[in-house]
Structure formats: structure tokens, C-alpha cells
């Protein structure tokens, strides 16, 4: 299991957060996703095969940007 903490730019409403969560959950191997619109960040838990780039891509698909990931 791997855990990523990400900061996301551009989310300003609750449905944005729901979208980001939905998109991240679709990434193969991702088990748990939690996004806080208020803190502009989220956590992604998943198998070791999950790559940071996949997470970035999933977020940008919804129209927002990952500003930091670790």
C-alpha cells in the first residue's frame, strides 16, 4: 500500500471535489480517496503500482491541477 498526499489548485466548490474523487477512484489500483475542497488537498491510497503521474493525470482530467504530490 502506498499513500500520496496531494495539493490541488482550482477547486472552488463541493462538486469539484466530488469530481476529483470520482476521477481518482477510476485509476487502477487506487483504494481510498479523500479530497478536501476547503484545504485544497487530498489523500490517495492504493497499491504500489499507482504512479504519481497517474494521479496527476486523473486530477487534470477534471480540470484542476496538482501543485504538489508526495
Amino acid at each position, binding site marked *: 500500500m502506498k499513500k500520496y498526499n496531494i*495539493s490541488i*489548485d*482550482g477547486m*472552488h*466548490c*463541493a*462538486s*469539484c*471535489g*466530488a*469530481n476529483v*474523487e*470520482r*476521477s481518482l477512484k477510476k485509476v487502477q489500483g487506487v483504494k481510498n480517496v*479523500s*479530497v*478536501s*475542497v*476547503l*484545504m*485544497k*488537498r*487530498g*489523500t490517495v491510497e492504493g497499491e504500489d503500482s499507482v504512479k504519481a503521474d497517474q494521479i496527476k493525470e486523473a486530477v487534470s*482530467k*477534471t*480540470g484542476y491541477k496538482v*501543485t*504538489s504530490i508526495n
Partner: protein
Amino acid sequence: MEEHKHNDLSDSENSEIKGWYRKLVSAWIFTIPLVIIMFFGRIFNIELLPERLMTPIILIIAFPVIFIFGWSTIKSGIRGLISFYFSMDSLIALGTIIAYLTGIASLFFKIQDYSGISAMIMAIFITGKYIEARARGKATSEIMKLLQLGAKKARVLRGKKEIEIPIRDLKIGDLMIIKPGEKIPTDGVVVKGESAVDESMVTGESMPVDKKKGSPVIGATINQDGILYVKATKIGSDTFLAHIIQLVESAQSEKIPIQKLADKITGIFVPIILILALLAGVNWFFFTHDISLSIGVAVAVLVIACPCSLGLAVPIVIMVSSGMGAKHGILIRKGEAIQTIKEIKYVVFDKTGTITKGKPEVSDIYSLVPEKDLLKIAASLEKLSEHPIALAIVKKAQLKEYKRVTGFKISRGRGLEGIIGKKKIVIGNATLMKERRIPLVKIANKIREFESNGKTTLVISENGKAIGTIAVADSIKEDSINAIGKLNAQDYNTVMITGDNELTAKEIAKQVGISEVIANVLPEDKAKKVEELQKTGMVAFVGDGINDAPALKQSNVSIAMGTGTDIAIEAGDIVLANGSLTGVVQAINLSKVTFRKIKQNLFWAFGYNIVAIPLAVAGVLHPVIAELAMAFSSISVVTNANLLRRKKI
């Protein structure tokens, strides 16, 4: 690094508010004249513009409002529509664009011109966002303050020179110099100097704490009146403050059960509204054959729906509540605890370190051999253990030299054994003596006397004979009595659980006002006792988080004492940074008012959408009224959350 990121967050918050403000001013500069030409004509029958020029002029004035000042919304909304990740913006974008297009269409067909309306919708939307962003800034302000609490610079001694360095260059072992009024850069130990330190920002404790050589200090607290020389012991993400921040941050993305439904609905809300708007429009056209009316209804449905109030209802309250808690040193880790706490029947306290200070001291010695010899034997054996009672005895004996011990053995929760010289020594409580068949006749009276005064006793035996007993007293924390009294008054069943014998335990319980005592419990059995209590009601367990972990896990709500400079992150649903029992009362009260606020917010958010959407579908709401209602509902949810701050905990 950490710090840098946090500053960015509040900066982006500020720039967001500023951004909305600029858009708001520009949007209304165009929209107000628009309103004047649109409505004055109708109300006062004054024709400001010739009829045939009206539509083109409105189209020109409305254009920048929607497509320049509202561009970020339109862009993100359209992107959402294309990628199927619909958001709030998709609704507004669609609503305003459709309305604007009616204006263009009206140049060619006979159709009502909604383009002026679309500018008004956008202007109101922007205004609503601005007010919401400000209220949200207020809601997050305490957390932001916490994030920015850390010191930026440290003054350290390098060689013989005092130099100022950025905090990220600080290393463990650095000698920091902190002058009166300055922030202590990071966690450490005082090596020289005396002062009082204000720790209220991290522990909630309002009285300054005295520090002298050997005292631990917490980073980000403020030195009051003396110069302190402090050796840095923890830096970066290992510090007390970093742990607190981590706790508070992770609580923000915790979902609480009551939120699940709202979250689910938020996720599917926008597509449902899109379909609903389409159906409503088509339906109205089918029955009335009035395209203008149908478009008006569809636009009203699009702009009245408010996923924000639904999605923000819970997290915004958690945000305000976390901020309030952090100010008092109460860190709610698991949002679920907020919901569970109101069902609690029992509040179970661990004794040592929770009700008492956890720093026992030797109070009485009764010895059948010379007292010095008794202490020497006891201390030599206890030196090998790390139990608080062992530390007390070692401290009392003040030996320069210890006797050699072989065959050392610990019986958990009961005592110690070992061989000194050729003598077999057993030190421990009555249970252990019974197990080893050591008679206590000669000292039994003394033991009873000590224990009925609330002291813990241990027996020292040599080759199967008791040679004395040492009593250890652990004083009660100042606010334990007050806090437990308050819990009793709120009809909680307070229970104390301890490894101590019944007599000692009952005396301590009597002093603090606890009626139910579970004594003689081995550390590993505490969880079992909690489980037994759970058969008749939900249990909150209050412990110091180090040896109480299983019991904390077993309980329905676990409250861990994060005393001093160490904080047990994994230990509790709720962590009390200052280890005072007053925090238990405050945490319970805070959870209760927070949960009530959450329910209120969800009620309003659901209620608003349930009432407003059907009204819009029914065609009784003008699109502008619909947009006003929408803005109002999301502002009200955030403002209501801010009202939580008025509650005293």
C-alpha cells in the same frame, strides 16, 4: 518546505477573495446600467432607448459580464460539460449562455430576450462567490493561524558566534538562544537559563509554564521573561506542532457517517439537474407551446440548484470546529467521534497519568530491616525497570552505586524478581506475594493503612520473607475533580480503571468523585473490561495513549492524552494536547455543538434544494430570483458554520 506550502495556501485563499472582488466590481459596473435600462422603461414608462436598439445594446453590455468577468466560470463549466465532469460551473455556464443566446435569437425571431437576465445571473453568482469566499476565509482562519504558527528563524550558537538562520537549516543538537518575547524555534531541552513560557497556542493551557535547566520546551511557544538556551531535540515533521498540524489537517478529509448521503448526492447532483432542466423545458413547451417561457423555466432550474451548500454543509462545520478545538488543545482526529459522542453512556478513565499526574513519589517506608538497606535492595532491582513506580523508588534512594542483579524478571502489572548476592528478591504487589507464597503478616496493617490513604504499596521480600513495604503516592491533577464533577452532572457514568488494588483505587476515586471503580486490572485486560461495559452502553475511554492502546481501540470514542512534548498520533479519536481532564469535558461539549450544527446545515442545504428545485420546475421562480436564492443558500451554510464560534465550550 512544509511551512512554505502552508503559506501558499492562505495566500491563494486571499488572492481568491481579491479575484472575486475585482470581478464583482467590474461585473456590477456593467450590470447596474443594464438593470436601469431594462426595468426603468418598464416600470416608469420612460423610454431610455429606442426599442429596436434595446436588444443590441443589452447584448453588448452583457457580453463582458458573462464572457470576460465570468470567463473562469464559463471556461471551467464548458470543460466540465465536455469531459463529463460536471460541476457547479457547468450549471451556471449553461444557464447564462442559453439566456444570452436568446438575446441574439430575438434579433431574428420573436422570442423573449433573456440576455440582460443572464448578465444579472452572472453578477449575482460572482457576488455570492465573493461573500462565500470571505466567510470561508473566516471559517478557516484559525486553522490557517495554526499552520503559520511555526517560527521562521532561529538564533543559534555556532562556534562562539550567535547567528540567525532560517528554520529549515536548523539541526538536531543545535544550541538555540531565545530572548524574552521571542518564539522558541523548535522542540528542545533547556540547557541554561530560566523563564516562563506561554504554551497556550499549542496546548490551550493559558497559564505560562516555568522552565529551567532540563525542562522540555515546545517549538512555536513564546518565551516570556528570561533568556533561554535550548538544545534542539526535534525538527521538521517530528515536532509537536507538526504533529498537531498533521492531526488537524487529516481531520479535514475524514468523512463522518452523516455526511455520506450528502456526498453521494453532491456527486450525482449536477447531471441530475441538467436532465431535470431539459425535461422541465421540454415539458413546458409541450403544454404551453411558449418557447420563451420554457427557456425561462430551464434557466431557473439550472441556476437555482446548489450543490455547494450540500457539499460544504459538513466540511465547513468541521473546519470551524477543528479550529476552535485546536485553540483549546483539543484535536479531533476521527470525525466519526463527533457523531458517536452523544450516544456515550460511560466515560472510563485510566488512573495513572490520566486522573493523576503519573509521576508517583515515595511517600512512606515501613521497614523490618534498616531503611537504607531496604532502599538499596529495592532501588538496585527497580533500576532495571522503566515503570513510573520504579523511577520513584530509584529517585528516592539516590544511590551512587547499585548492587549487581542476576536472573532479573518482570511480571507485568505485578512486580519484579531477581537475585542479589545469593538472596532471592521479589518486589511487587500483594498478588505477586500471594503467588510466591510469601506471608505478609508482619506488615499487613501498614499496607492497609497506606492503601486506605490512596497510596500504592509494594512489598520487598528476601528469600521468601517480607522485609518491608514502600508506599508510593501519585498526586491528582488539579482539574480532575472539577472535570469529573461536570461529567457526573451531565449524567455520564464515570468509571475508573486501574491496576491498583481496590483499597487504593477506591480512595482516589472518592477524592475525584468517581463512583464506579474497576481495580486490580492487568494492562492487557483493560480492553476486556471496556468490552463488558459496552454490553450496556457506549464507552468513551480516556487514557494516556501509551499503555492504554488496546482499551482505547476497543472503546467507542477514544480520548488520548497527548501530554507534554510527546503526542501519540495513532492513539485516539480525540487527542488532548495538554493532558488536562478539562479537555475531556470540552471535547464532549465541542462534539455535541458541532454535531448539532452539522445537522442544522444539512437540514438547510437539503431543505433548500428540496423546496427550491420543484418551485423552479413549476415555473413560479424568475431566473434572477432563482440565482439570488442559490447564492443565499450557499452563503447561509458557511455563515451558519461560523456561528459555531459563538458557542462556549
